[in-house]
């Protein structure tokens, strides 16, 4: 028996070894292409997958962020029962591309979820994200009931000192924040930090206790996303965050990637400002987060690469 087990293990080990060789070669080639470490990459003018591929390569490839065997969460915005063309949710093609890339980088599993606003099954289905993520090999997690959330402390928070955060984020090794860029009636804009509202259970508390401060407070959660990937392929410039018709949507074809959540949101906001005026001071959670020193709003102080396709 023991001998058989040993042989089995040896066989499996050698297969694993052989498999391992290949992606590592690929990675080596990719990193040759990438011109050093960028802090922020902005991409423009392509389809979601194409922009993502170029962008992540410029960030040093997914392997720089996701290690072999890690449990990964990809957290898009799936808040609304709307089809992709309404741009109320993150682009499903982008989500699928990220999921595939995480798996290719050796992730043990990739989980996708959001705490939706509209009825969750309709959101998961009609956003196209459930199907796209599953096809790409991700696991869809449930997030519609309080039982899927666990309380964590936010010692740095001014108004939000505790929050119930989704268990998959707590259990994951790394997570990737994938918001969609939208105008927002309450928070003015919704980007990376606002996307945290989908990892917590009690959003009502935020609205009732200085929304802008709570958004910044939650961004101090110690387990930060390794990447913030802001989807600006289609952007909702008015009537956000839910939108009425596709008249609210502009095909902007852009993507912003950064590990610095404040920088990612600053860049996305400045891009958005070209379509519709939006002042930094009005989106005050960005400034409030910068005060916590969790990132910078000064894009000149970091290494930015701009890619036009």
């Amino acid at each position, binding site marked *: 028996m023991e001998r058989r087990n040993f042989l089995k293990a040896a066989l499996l080990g050698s297969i694993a070894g052989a498999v391992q060789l290949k992606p590592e070669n690929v990675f080596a080639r990719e990193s040759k292409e990438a011109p050093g470490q960028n802090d922020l990459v902005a991409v423009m003018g392509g389809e979601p997958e194409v922009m993502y591929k170029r962008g992540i390569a410029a960030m040093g490839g997914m392997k720089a962020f996701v290690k072999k065997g890690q449990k990964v969460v990809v957290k898009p915005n799936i808040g609304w029962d709307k089809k992709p063309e309404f741009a109320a949710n993150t682009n499903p093609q982008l989500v699928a591309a990220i999921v595939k890339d995480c798996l290719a980088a050796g992730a043990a599993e990739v989980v996708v979820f959001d705490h939706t*606003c509209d*009825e969750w099954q309709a959101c998961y289905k009609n956003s196209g994200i459930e199907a796209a993520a599953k096809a790409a090999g991700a696991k869809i997690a449930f997030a519609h009931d309080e039982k899927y959330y666990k309380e964590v402390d936010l010692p740095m928070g001014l108004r939000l000192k505790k929050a119930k955060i989704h268990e998959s984020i707590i259990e994951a090794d790394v997570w990737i924040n994938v918001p969609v860029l939208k105008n927002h009636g*309450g928070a003015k804009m919704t980007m990376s930090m606002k996307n945290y509202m989908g990892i917590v259970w009690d959003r*009502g508390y935020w609205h009732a206790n200085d*929304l802008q401060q709570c958004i910044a407070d939650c961004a101090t959660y110690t387990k930060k996303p390794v990447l913030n990937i802001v989807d600006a392929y289609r952007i909702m410039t008015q009537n956000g965050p839910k939108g*009425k018709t596709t*008249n609210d949507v502009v095909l902007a074809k852009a993507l912003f990637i950064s590990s610095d959540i404040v920088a990612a949101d600053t*860049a996305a906001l400045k891009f958005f400002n070209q379509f519709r005026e939006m002042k930094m001071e009005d989106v005050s959670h960005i400034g409030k987060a910068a005060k916590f020193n969790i990132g910078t709003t000064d894009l000149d102080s970091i290494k930015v690469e701009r890619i036009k396709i």
Partner: protein
Amino acid sequence: MYKFLKRGRVAVSILITVAVTLAFLFFSNRETDLFNGFLKIQFVPALLGVFTGSAIILVLLTLLTLLFGRVYCSTICPLGTLQDATSRTASLFKSKKSRRFKYSSPKNLMRYLILGAAGIPLIFGSSAVISFLDPYSNYGKISSEITGRLEQYVHNLLSTVFPDTIFFRSYSVFIAGSFIFALAFLILVLAMSALRGRLYCNTICPVGTLLGFISRFSAFKPEINRESCNKCTLCVTNCKAECIDLKNSTIDESRCVGCLNCMTVCKKGAVTYKYSWKKREEQNEVPANAASDPVPASSGRRDALITLGLVGTFLAVKAVGKVAPLAAKPKKDGIAPPGAVSIDNLKSNCTACQACVTACPNGIIKPATGEYGTDGLLMPVLSFDKHFCGYDCNVCTQVCPNGALIPLEIEEKRLTQIGKVRFNLKKCIVFTDKTDCGACDEHCPTKAITMIPWGEEGLFIPKVNRNICIGCGGCEYVCPAKEKAMIVEPNEVHAIAQKPKEEKQEKVKVDEFGF
């Protein structure tokens, strides 16, 4: 032949009962609306829905009864099947002697009084009484409150065993009154059927009484052939309707549910269906026959005619659409689901079967306690405590078998104004705390709520346009203020909201990143 027929009857009755039950259960009614068709073939839904597409079904059910008597009760009615199953199960635990049924005389006064109590309010435009007596609707309540809850517990148990594949079903609003009624009714029916077979159907059920009247005129009636019958009482002891009077060799067709038991057990073949229309004429010609009948046929026929007259009046009143108001000014604090047209329409047509309650994906439809007043108890009312009405959802309007909720296309539903929001500035977070909120605006699907600049600190406050509000309750549900600043006020009569304006944007050409 009767054995074959009986097997068919049992198979059909089980099929229909299973399908009706599945229409109320989460795991089946989310995936398909196939089972809802089985709700529409029930008698009271067909009667109430006669002008909303169920006329053919009502005609077919009446024809069926005119041909074969109350076979509806033993094949189509799910409550009937439940009672047969109970009766059969109970007999396994009974002694041989107590297992036997006996003939019992009809409790006609009680039957007519209950039928009158349930039927007459219908003429005056209130389905309040029938909603507590209709066998289908009460079966619905049982399916929703008891079977459905059990299913939910099983589902949630499974969700702990398979957390990745089976999701936890959040518990929705629990209305104790509705649950207790369903449970009490279930216990009553189970007890009655365990002890006395179809006693409920033949003393209380108004549908049974009504179909019993029609059965007096039916073409085929069960009859005992006096010559071949040896009075072995096998038929009597197997008759769960307790309607075979062997002393006079008669079968009370108004109580016979056409279960075919007597015909299958009779060793002499003495109990059979006989064509009776031709015979009746003969009977009229020979008065000697009528005299030997212990119950004067004319009195039964008179009752039947009165009842059918009432049904006729009901249909006529319904067709004209004029309804005599029962109470002076009934209470109307509840928001009726989309498709209800008006609270009055709901109260005239709903029998509180809870098909809409169980079908609502957002779990916001609950049985009313006092929102519509006493004549609207347990009828569906919206509650925005745990969720709100989905903009792109019309499920409740599709499942109602009665026409109490008329089917709405998605496009119509999006403009159906079931209520209008009222904004109370003094309770709004932006006003009280001077901080951003906008949760209401976020959820508003028509942008009846927009955020406008307010004060000097760059704050935005909600502004409401009630003309385009459809009363979905998104804002009320999500408002984080301790006392809600957004409250939807019901529309007694549902209206058509104004279409939200299309806001075209100027095209801006952007080639740069902006930083």
